[in-house]
């Protein structure tokens, strides 16, 4: 697929491929998304704003220039910002593809990093030479100030112009906890939300710390997505309960919503409200308990996002969809076109009442302290 290379969240020509439970594919302008919704549906989006998670600076022991991309956090607590998981790159910038970026200098526990005004220390390596846990120095107020002023949103080689926070700020952006934008949410604007309301379609949000999409290393990429903390408001859990009761579809805007809701799902398909950390991966053998349909960007086979889509459609359908998207010139990546997979006809009646078989557990390094304690 062609990479979408302009940072425009809702380009006028954006397309939407709608794939139903039988595998039939329909194409529409994405602006017509609301026409594919029905009264009684519940649309759920991730309201995380995007942190400026890319920090440039210096590896103090070697003097080498580095870029640190924050990539994980143990909770969403506002004052819990002194420890992050991070991927470290060597010199260069986003004009070089992530996978072609040079590795960082040799990193060791205790190494000091000077990231603009922010001092950080490597706590330990997390099973990979560029994957570390970091401790940031300063009070929470100071850390928030230095991240917001010195950090930049993570950039993409396929978008030639430098991305500003505004470019990745969704209309519904709230808590700044995503490491890369929950870009499926680019489809939403206030006009669409108003149209949904007048069409009897409910709307709710979760907050999920969407992680990074690429580490630049194939071996490390296989560990994506990392564990991601989330919060489900009580009101959202209630909205899901009501949607179940009336038989409305629960439609996730983006893979992060699926990950959070399915992690918080109880055996009867309801959802626990409150804070959690999504550790499960969702893939072809996952039995979805809550989510009936997903709106997502288009994803290339092999990515973790594509793998998640395999919970919504069988491989033959996905492959056919992929070919059609290629043939019709769909664009991929953050600012690209969208897909809408609806599994409701075959899936909704098959609530899995067993354990969580089908999910593969987190393989985040047990040695990394970041995932040890949750308040």
């Amino acid at each position, binding site marked *: 697929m062609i990479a979408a290379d302009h940072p425009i969240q809702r380009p006028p020509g954006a397309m939407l491929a709608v794939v139903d439970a039988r595998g039939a594919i329909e194409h529409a302008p994405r602006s017509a998304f609301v026409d594919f919704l029905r009264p009684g549906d519940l649309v759920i989006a991730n*309201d995380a*704003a995007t*942190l*400026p998670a890319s920090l440039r600076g210096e590896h103090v022991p070697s003097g080498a220039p580095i870029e640190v991309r924050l990539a994980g956090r143990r909770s*969403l*607590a*506002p004052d819990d*910002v002194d420890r992050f998981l991070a991927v470290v790159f060597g010199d260069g910038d986003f004009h070089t593809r992530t996978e072609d970026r040079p590795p960082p200098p040799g990193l060791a526990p205790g190494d000091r990093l000077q990231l603009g005004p922010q001092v950080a220390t490597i706590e330990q390596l997390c099973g990979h030479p560029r994957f570390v846990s970091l401790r940031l120095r300063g009070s*929470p*107020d100071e850390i*928030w*100030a230095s*991240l*917001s*002023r010195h950090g930049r949103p993570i950039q993409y080689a396929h978008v030639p112009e430098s991305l*500003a*926070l*505004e470019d990745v*700020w*969704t*209309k*519904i*952006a*709230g*808590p*700044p*906890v995503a490491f890369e934008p929950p870009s499926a949410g680019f489809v939403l604007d*206030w006009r669409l*939300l*108003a149209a949904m*309301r007048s069409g009897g379609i409910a*709307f*709710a*949000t979760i907050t999920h710390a969407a992680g990074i999409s690429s580490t630049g290393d194939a071996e490390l990429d296989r560990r994506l997505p990392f564990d991601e903390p989330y919060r489900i*408001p*009580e*009101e959202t859990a209630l909205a899901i309960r009501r949607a179940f009761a009336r038989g409305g579809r629960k439609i996730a805007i983006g893979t992060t919503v699926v990950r959070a809701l399915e992690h918080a799902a109880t055996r009867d398909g309801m959802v626990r409200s409150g804070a959690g950390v999504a550790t499960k991966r969702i893939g072809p053998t996952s039995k979805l308990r809550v989510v009936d349909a997903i709106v997502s960007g288009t994803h290339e086979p092999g990515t973790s996002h594509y793998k998640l889509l395999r919970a919504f459609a069988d491989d033959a359908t996905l492959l056919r969809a992929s070919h059609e998207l290629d043939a019709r010139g769909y664009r991929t990546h953050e600012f690209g076109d969208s897909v809408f997979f609806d599994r409701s006809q075959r899936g909704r009646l098959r609530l899995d009442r067993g354990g969580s078989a089908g999910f593969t557990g987190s393989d985040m390094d047990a040695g990394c302290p970041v995932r040890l304690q949750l308040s």
Partner: protein
Amino acid sequence: MQSAGRNALECPFAGLRVAITGGTSGLGLALVEELKRRGAQVAFVARDQGRVERVAREHPGAHGIVGDVSRKDDIHPIAIQVVGRLGGLDVLVNNASDLGPAPLQLLGDTDCGDLERALATNVVGPFRLTKALLGALVASAREGKGSVVVNVSSDAAIHPYPSWGAYGASKAALLHLSRIWHEELASEGVRVLSLDPGDMDTPLHALAVPDADPATLKRPEAAARELADAIGDALPDRGSLRARGAVMSERAGGSP
């Protein structure tokens, strides 16, 4: 003022997450103090790092943010710090204001740059910041906690006082913006208030009318109490009992 132990219904400010721009002097500083006293979690924004640090030191628990709402590049860093630090946002007070030319000038003598600065601080800045924080504000409303935006207005927004052209025009634009925001956001559960605190003994007033007798002016603390009451009225549980126009362009409280 509120004693500890009152429940949330009687004490709508307990835990309320509030952001105030222009929070290191005048009405903004008085609001930081008043809302903190009522139990709110407060983040305040101002341009001068030294003053932000001083106010933060003198008001433990208040989160100081250095930023200039008239600068486009400051808006999202401010939003990140506000929502990141408070974990969400229930109330935004767009209080930071620019007088325009100081001393005041007839329009014919007003530099375009002074008018532009007043518009950037008093109209475009509040618009940008409200927009960047709208997701957080609407989320609060969706969760039933209510959500209020206060745009600090002036009678100069309504009356064409000679020599107040830059300030008056910018505040008139802000008032109209408030009314339209209010109409558009009503269905999202966000109330947008335009409140005129009256002529106060503040640095901005001293800049405009250097020889005014402070004794004839309202204390910013008194105006802050009235604004806090108006915010309390607009929040759920309390607000529904009082059939008050949501957009109040008249003075909130007594005359100066």
